[in-house]
Structure formats: C-alpha cells, structure tokens
C-alpha cells in the first residue's frame, strides 16, 4: 500500500541528483570560462579537447558520477513515463505488466550504461 510513497520519494531524490550532476556538467562543459577548475580541464582551454576528455575519463570521480547520473536519470524518467502511462487508466493486470516491463528496460539500460562507463574508465586508464 505504501508503494507510491516510496517511489515518489526516490523520484524526488533522483531529480535532485540529476539537478546537481547536470549543474556540474554545465560548470565543466559550458561555464568553464567563468568557473575555472583547472584539474577538470588540465590540457587546454576547450573542455571537449581530447586530452581533457581523456583526463576526466581517468578519474574515478567521473566514472562514479556517470553511473550515478545514469541510474538517477533512468529511474526518474521511467517512473515519470510509468505515471503518464498509468493516467491512461490501464487495467490492473496491464499496470503490473507495464511496471515489470519498465523495470526490465531500466535495469537492462543501467547494466549496459554501467558497462560502458567502466569500459571507458578502463580504456582511459590504459592510454
């Protein structure tokens, strides 16, 4: 019975995580001229320079934030999609099917994205 309370709380928490991490993305990628953090862009002026990308890729911090952002975005987005679909007033059985399908899709994408983040991290460390 308390399911929606839990899911909503995690939905809000995921939203906050997205807000913070997207804020970080904005600072690093788009506000670099204003907020200068040399350790995040050690190789030059442009944040998208390959050397900067590779340097960030070697940092554990970024590998963790990629996975965190992926998890938060997947949960926030798929829960929102579930809410929209539920407003179409499906039958109880279909609601369960939709929830399970979204769970499987979300978990699958999370595993795939996590693998990509870890693989990218390993590759960057080997360069």
């Amino acid at each position: 019975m308390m399911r929606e309370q839990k899911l909503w709380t995690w939905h809000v928490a995921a939203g906050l995580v997205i807000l913070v991490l997207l804020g970080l993305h904005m600072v690093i990628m788009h506000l670099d001229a204003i907020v200068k953090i040399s350790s995040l862009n050690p190789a030059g002026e442009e944040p998208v320079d390959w050397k900067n990308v590779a340097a960030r890729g070697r940092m554990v911090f970024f590998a963790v934030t990629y996975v965190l952002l992926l998890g938060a975005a997947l949960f926030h987005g798929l829960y929102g999609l579930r809410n929209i679909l539920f407003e179409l007033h499906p039958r109880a059985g279909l609601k369960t099917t939709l929830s399970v399908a979204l769970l499987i899709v979300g978990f699958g994408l999370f595993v795939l994205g996590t693998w990509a983040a870890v693989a990218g991290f390993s590759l960057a460390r080997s360069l």
Partner: protein
Amino acid sequence: MSETNAKTILYRVRRYDPARDAAPRWQDFTLPRTAGMTVLDGLWVIKETQDPSLAWRSSCRMGVCGSCGMVINGRPRLGCNTQVSELSADVVAVAPLPNFDIIRDLVPDLAPMFDAHGAVRPYVIRDDVEERENPSGEFGQSPHELEQYLQFSYCIKCGCCMAACPTYATDPVYSGPMPLAQAHRYNTDTRDGGFKSRKDMLGGERGPWRCHFAGECSRVCPKGVDPAKAIQLMKREMVLDYLRLRKGHVAASVVPKPSGVKRRPDIPEAPPRTA
C-alpha cells in the same frame, strides 16, 4: 453593462432524466431578472412558474451547506453564492458538476466523493478512548497550531474542487482534492494522533501522488480553501515520513481546568453533554 439593464435573463439548463432521456440535453427558460437574484433563486423561479420537474440539490441558501454545487457558465460554483449580475452575461448556463454520474438534471451522484472522504478517516483519532468517550476537558492547542489547518477546515464538501480537478476526471482511483485536503487537515491537527492509520491509504495509489498541481481545485473553491496546497504539503509530509525526518506530534493532552479563579456571575456554566 447592457445585460444588467435587461429585465429578463435566459437560463440554459442541462436536463437529464435517466428514466426517459438517452443523453443530457439543454433547455432554455426566460425569466424576470430581479435585483440581488442568485442563480439558485432563478432555478426556484423556473420550478415554481415554468417547469416543476426541474431537479437540483440545495438547502441553506447561504453558502454553508455545500449542497448546490453546479457548473455555472463553465465554472463550478455554488448556486446560492453566485449572483446573476456578477456573471456579466446575458445567458446563465447551468449544468451538473462533471466527474460524477448524474442522478437527474442538476443532481450529481456524490457518493464516490464521500466514499473517498470516509476512507481517509476525516475525524480526530486518538488512543485515549476513555477521554474520547467521556471527555474531562479541552485538548490544548495554540493559535499557531490552529492556523496550520484552519483554512482546510472551512471546506463544505460541495464537490466543486472534484469537478474542476483534471486528474480526478480521468483517474477513478485518485481520491481527489477534497478527501486529500481533509486528510491533511486532520494529520496537521495537533489533537489528532491518526497519521499512521491514514498513512497506508495515502501512501498508495489513492494518495496525493497523481496530483499535477493544476491548481483548479483551489481556483474554484467557493470557500477560499486551497486544496492544492494541502496536497503538496501532504506530499512533503509523506516524503519526510519515508525518510524518517517527519516531525510527528503526540496527540495534545487535556488542558487542566483553571484553578483559583471564580466564575463571573454573568457567565453561565457550560450546558451538560448531549452526546
């Protein structure tokens, strides 16, 4: 305005008798316009002079009982609380509240609303049964504590907010603004200790989670209650409760009777309990 000078007013009334009509239809009535005439007054004139079969629900005629909620010129309002002159229109279109089945003409079936209302246990819940059954005094409550729920207690259960809610229109599981606002009203009342017993229901699909914060419920409320605010505050309370950060309260205890004072002779004793 020109319409206020007119001597007559056109009422366009939504009619429906499930026993005879296949679908609702509009019926026009022209009636004399009088000073201070409310929409409800006009319906009475129609019933007394033109069509005695017209049905609606009303009682107090002073915006207190909440019986005469109806859609007037596209907006849910109380018929008794709406003057024809304030509509600034030549036509008064009256229809039953949407989002409910129609019993007849302007009479909606409000039973689902009151079922949802009852499900949130809208009364003070306390563990001290003896004090509840045989009260020995008043439960203490400060003006600040009263202020936390006072506006929500002005609700007269007219159903206007339910009729305006876009979520309630499409989601039959959603409890709607009135029951949820009343749940918040009692959860916030410091005399109440029933948050846990309401939590199971509110934490599920019938709770506040489907609210989009459209705010229509608050816009149409004839008593100035803000159900949309109550629902957002309830969401916050429920989230804090899940995170175990909610500051709960112990149900207020009985305030000791004042001692060492004499009753003024012109102030009578309280009458004996009747219930």
